[in-house]
């Protein structure tokens, strides 16, 4: 299909650019690691068991690192003028959205995959089960779906990098709350069915905002 060919071409473009510079990935990963370490010192002496705060630490680290990555995603396009090129290409605006969004998703997933083992070692936990991975994936997807639209907006404002977290965090809150809640329950050894309603909430969020983003992205990149 033409649509998905355009989408994969955009993802592939981002991956290739990233493989050459490794700008986004390295800054995201180092920042995520730093926030985990900072949280460790912020909580260590006050919290009896790091397991109690680990879900929060994981989700906040992913959110912070993801915000950093999202900022770069459109700044690069804008500064080098490649966004204009993308818009001139004879493809649907929605294809540009899905291409950029899935690219962002991929970067955050890769960072998370490398971050998780380190978190497991630092805090002596196990996060390697399909339930944990499902929860993380659903949350990160919601993050990328909303974040891609906002980062395309933020890059066109005066404040740029500062704007994105201000726009993104309040809208993102349901995902963050549900993510922390679910990761926490799974760490306490409860089955996934105990958090089914939270899972539903994130699923509704993901589907709903993908549709809204699909409908509105054209207005954001329009010149």
């Amino acid at each position: 299909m033409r649509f998905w060919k355009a989408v994969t071409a955009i993802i592939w473009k981002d991956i290739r650019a990233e493989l050459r510079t490794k700008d986004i990935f390295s800054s995201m990963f180092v920042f995520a690691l730093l926030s985990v370490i900072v949280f460790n010192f912020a909580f260590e002496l006050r919290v009896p068991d790091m397991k109690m705060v680990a879900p929060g630490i994981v989700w906040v680290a992913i959110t912070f690192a993801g915000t950093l990555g999202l900022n770069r995603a459109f700044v690069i396009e804008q500064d080098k003028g490649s966004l204009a090129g993308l818009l001139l290409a004879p493809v649907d605006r929605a294809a540009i959205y899905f291409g950029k969004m899935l690219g962002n998703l991929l970067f955050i997933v890769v960072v998370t995959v490398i971050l998780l083992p380190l978190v497991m070692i630092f805090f002596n936990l196990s996060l390697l089960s399909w339930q944990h991975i499902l929860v993380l994936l659903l949350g990160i997807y919601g993050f990328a779906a909303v974040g891609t639209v906002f980062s395309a907006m933020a890059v066109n404002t005066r404040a740029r990098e500062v704007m994105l977290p201000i726009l993104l965090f309040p809208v993102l809150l349901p995902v963050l709350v549900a993510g922390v809640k679910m990761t926490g329950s799974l760490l306490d050894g409860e089955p996934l069915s105990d958090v089914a309603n939270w899972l539903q909430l994130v699923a509704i969020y993901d589907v709903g905002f993908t549709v809204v983003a699909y409908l509105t992205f054209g207005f954001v990149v329009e010149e």
Partner: protein
Amino acid sequence: MERSSRTLMIFTALAAALVLFAAYMALRGAPDAVGLTEDNTFAQRIIYFHVPSAWLSMLAFGVTMVASIGYLVTSKRAWDSLAVSSAELGLVFTLAATASGAIWAKPAWNVWWTWDPRLTTYTIMFLLFVAYFMLRSAMEDPARRARFSSVYAIFAFLSVPITFMSIRWWRTIHPVLIDPNEGFGLGPGMMNAFFISLFSFTVLYAVLLAHRYRLERTKEQVEELKEQLGY
């Protein structure tokens, strides 16, 4: 005076009279709540101010979202003016509801603020529309500003019910006014006063919105005239 502004003046006077009447009903007209301590009996009367404010903040942000969709569909600047006017009023009523809630919470819960889910959601809604105004102020081009803030308003307003849903699953200590099992939580006399103030505040909102909208349109006209004159 134009006819439209004369009509607006009449409605403004009507809104003022209604709000005064609502204040009388809230302070004198409504019966005392039963089974509360003396402090809490007085504090309870804040409901006639608190609930209408909260309702209007939701209504105002809802109007902002509808107007934003209107802008994206038609590209008419009037819709954007309506959206920003309503969003501003929404922020005012959000602050009014939060402040009155805090005044009630001190005698009832013994704290000004608690991280109750409903209060938290409300704070998030406040922040969403603060972000809306920050986004607007970070762009000069009116068309782009209108487009971006319309898109953001849609995202922002839709995220509120999702955040709200999680309320029911967290333990909440906020009173529930309309309970599906127990019906309405107010006696008949209180109900009268309650609906009078709800109605009066809604009229007040509509009048304020009309004023604010006119101001916004005038501002745009001045901008256009300045441009034509080469300022």
